[in-house]
């Protein structure tokens, strides 16, 4: 029996080669969530939970495209004072004391499901939006910095000086605490990704994947079920939305 005989007429050839062609570009297309802007008057919904999966195997020590992108996106200035300058995302260099293996991973607000910063904020300015993004409501923030003390990831920064020329989509000012917003302004207008993820892809690294953790069909959910995703300081029971591979 000729089980393995391949019928190769023109029609079939065209079909198959188109499939191969599509399959080769699919990762690039499907790596991002399909952009769907939520209607302007529709509130954020808890049916969605935004998260990120970071594949640290793709990160190198000399790359900080994500950091630069975040700073550019939000108008974060460098005042030359590293102890007080804002950092929403940073590259953390790790050396395993036992084996000597090195990693360089991006670290930002982990958007916990049980955020300690939300628990401790006296005015409720630090809050978790319905779709899981942990934010600071800067209208209510009194600048007490208690949330900064409570964060297990040192994710938050305090604005120590007067700011000028803020970007309209990223209001920030002296005296308030701030941290990674998962590019909430981009999410709400339907970009479907964050600045850091976008920059990482552009740079060709594909380390940062953004998506809806509640959607089992999303790329991030699929990758998580395939490769798993480690939660940093998981013993604290915070159930972070940002997960890591490769450490």
């Amino acid at each position, binding site marked *: 029996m000729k089980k393995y005989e391949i019928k190769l007429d023109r029609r079939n050839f065209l079909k198959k080669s188109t499939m191969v062609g599509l399959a080769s570009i699919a990762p690039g297309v499907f790596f991002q969530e399909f952009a769907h802007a939520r209607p302007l008057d529709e509130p954020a919904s808890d049916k969605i939970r935004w998260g990120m999966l970071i594949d640290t195997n793709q990160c190198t020590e000399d790359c900080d495209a994500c950091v630069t992108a975040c700073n550019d996106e939000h108008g974060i200035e460098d005042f030359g004072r590293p*102890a007080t300058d804002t950092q929403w995302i940073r*590259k953390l260099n*790790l*050396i395993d004391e036992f084996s000597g293996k090195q990693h360089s991973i991006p670290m930002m607000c982990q958007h916990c499901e049980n955020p300690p910063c939300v628990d401790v904020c006296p005015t409720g300015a630090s809050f978790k939006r319905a779709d899981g993004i942990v934010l600071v409501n800067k209208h209510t923030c009194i*600048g007490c910095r208690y949330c900064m*003390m409570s*964060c297990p990831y*040192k994710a938050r920064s305090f604005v120590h000086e007067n700011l000028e020329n803020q970007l309209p989509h990223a209001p920030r000012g002296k005296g308030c605490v701030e941290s990674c917003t998962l590019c909430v302004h981009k999410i709400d207008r339907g970009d479907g990704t964050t600045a850091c993820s976008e920059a990482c892809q552009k740079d060709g690294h594909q380390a940062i994947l953004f998506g809806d953790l509640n959607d089992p069909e999303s790329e991030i959910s699929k990758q998580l079920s395939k490769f798993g995703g480690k939660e940093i300081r998981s013993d604290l029971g915070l159930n972070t939305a940002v997960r890591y591979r490769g450490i």
Partner: protein
Amino acid sequence: MNLIRYKSVELDKKFFLPVILIFIALASCLFAFVTLEHEGHWLTGMNNQVVWGIPHVFAIFLIVSASGILNIASISSVFGVPAYKPLSRLSGLLAIGLLIGGLMVLVLDLGRPDRLIVAMTTFNFKSIFAWNIFLYTGFLLIAVIYLWMMFEGRFNKYVTRVGMFAYGWRIILTTGTGSIFGFLVAKEAYDSAMLAPLFIAMSLLFGTAIFIQTIYYLKSSFEVIVGEIIFKRLRKLLLYFILAVLYFTILFHLTNLYATTHHDYEFFLLLSGNVYTYLFWIGQILLGTLLPLYLVSSKRFENCWNTLLLSSFLIIFGGFIQLYVIIISGQAFPLDMFPGFIENSTFGDGEVAQYIPSIYEFMLGLGGIAIASAVFIFGILILEFVPDSLKDEHLQNK
């Protein structure tokens, strides 16, 4: 029955120097506040790792002392020791002054102090900080009512009930203050229920020490004769509270030393020879605990007012150091996000953070002390807080 007589103090030359000093301190506090409000906190030594600094050390010292100093009145109202009754009014006044001072420093250091109204009206009740706002302002109200019950003859019969309520409120307040740190799971140096009782013990110790200084001041400047009974009782009280603080301190560190996961911080604090190690061993333990312990327990000084006064100063000095060590070293020590890994980054991960206090922070803190002193001086001038005599014969039932 001996009626206790109280007097208000006459305004005269001896207030000149204290008032000038208070004025200078308040003016510099105002200057510091306006500067920081305009320029931002980059002028201070506080940063994204050590977010609370000297102003908070002062503020928490004042608040914790305010709670503890009201204990003197509680000993009379709640525990029924008559010898303390003439001291109750002063205790209430000092508690109010110290708390106002502490609150003021806390508010002045906020990133957005213009949002104080927001802080007073919008609450997240899961936050111990929010509860503390109620506890502190409520404490002021209760202390005022407590004093009112003491001053108004026909309300004297309510002093016990209000005193008990105040006592319970104080315990909760100081627990709340200790829990500001105790509830922080993220930091190795905090995350402990032990901090609440430690703070309660500290409050009693610092409050009593400040009270002793006040009595000494009244004795030396306002001809209030203080008998042996008051002296001996206050001295013994100080001894008990030194021991209490020492107990909780030892227990706290001993428990941490049992947990290997806490070893890094304990080693950092107790053994690594940085500034916090010296502050802890020499400032807090040697000068702030062991030396005053000796001075208040030794037979050699059992009648010496000056030694008791010196002990009070040492205790307050040690108390500041203790709070500095707790608050600053706990923050300066890096988070252990990746056990078993060495970390470094552009954001100071894995490094012990530098904290060099700025002059502005001291100005804010001293302003708090100035306000407390101002409230005290104002109070003794206009109302009868000071007992006429604290001689042994004039105390009821000793």
